[in-house]
């Protein structure tokens, strides 16, 4: 495993990008910061710029307005950058698949490294998903 990826597993800087969400997943992501789950004690920090991010959390259904932005955002992230699709919408668009405003899945825009399903996934599930991803990255030396 590259030195960079190894460094990632110490402390993760996470950038949260929403495409067209209903916001449940976004709230649950923010919820991981609150005292009950307090994800910051694991060194997971939410950052304001994608250029500083190690992990890109994507929520929502990509629509015509947000699809290009997601692509641009991923382009700006310093590589390696892991992408996590949070929530059923980001995983596979579920009931919005047939909408006239929803052109494709998240993984057809950017490569996704982990899928955390749920509608919304509980904060515990989000943390568990990220930890699994770290372990997978650590394990794949």
């Amino acid at each position, binding site marked *: 495993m590259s030195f960079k990826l190894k460094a990632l597993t110490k402390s993760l800087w996470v950038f949260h990008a929403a495409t067209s969400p209903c916001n449940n997943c976004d709230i649950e992501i923010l919820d991981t910061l609150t005292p009950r789950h307090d994800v910051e004690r694991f060194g997971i920090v939410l950052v304001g710029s994608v250029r500083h991010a190690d992990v890109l959390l994507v929520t929502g259904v990509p*629509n*015509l*307005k947000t699809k290009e932005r997601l692509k641009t955002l991923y382009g700006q992230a310093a590589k390696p950058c892991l992408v996590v699709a949070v929530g059923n919408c980001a995983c596979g668009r579920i009931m919005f698949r*047939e*909408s*006239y*405003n929803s052109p494709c899945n998240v993984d057809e825009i950017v490569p996704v490294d982990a899928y955390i399903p749920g509608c919304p996934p509980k904060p515990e599930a989000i943390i568990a998903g990220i930890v699994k991803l770290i372990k997978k990255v650590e394990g794949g030396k």
Partner: protein
Amino acid sequence: MAVLDKIRERLADKIINWHEHSEKRIYILIKPQDIRKVATLLFKDLGLRFIIATGQDTPQGIEILYHFSIDKTGQIISVRVLIEDKKKPEIESLAPLFPGAEWIEREMWEMLGIKFIGHPNLKRLLLAEEWPEGKYPLRQEHES
């Protein structure tokens, strides 16, 4: 006099059809060209609250329902107009009367192709810039 009675009296010459679905849900049909006068009466004179407008593509034409709320009694009076020209549907905008109508008229324009004459800012509200001109998602011929 109850608000409904006032409406019935003052719009007597404009109401084509008055239907009371229930005590709290009333639907009246008027001609499209009367909408500005009717809305002025309901909103400005009688102080009803404008809730929203619903545009629909029906076989008979493009129908718009303007929903007004009589908050004191909990009744909703929905004013229906039917625009028969489906190729170029047009109607007077209510935005000059009250700004609360601006956004919904923009939405009905982009979703159904209805032109609102006199609207101060008739441009896209929800659809992306690259969405093709002339394609109206809420028209029946447009697929889901």
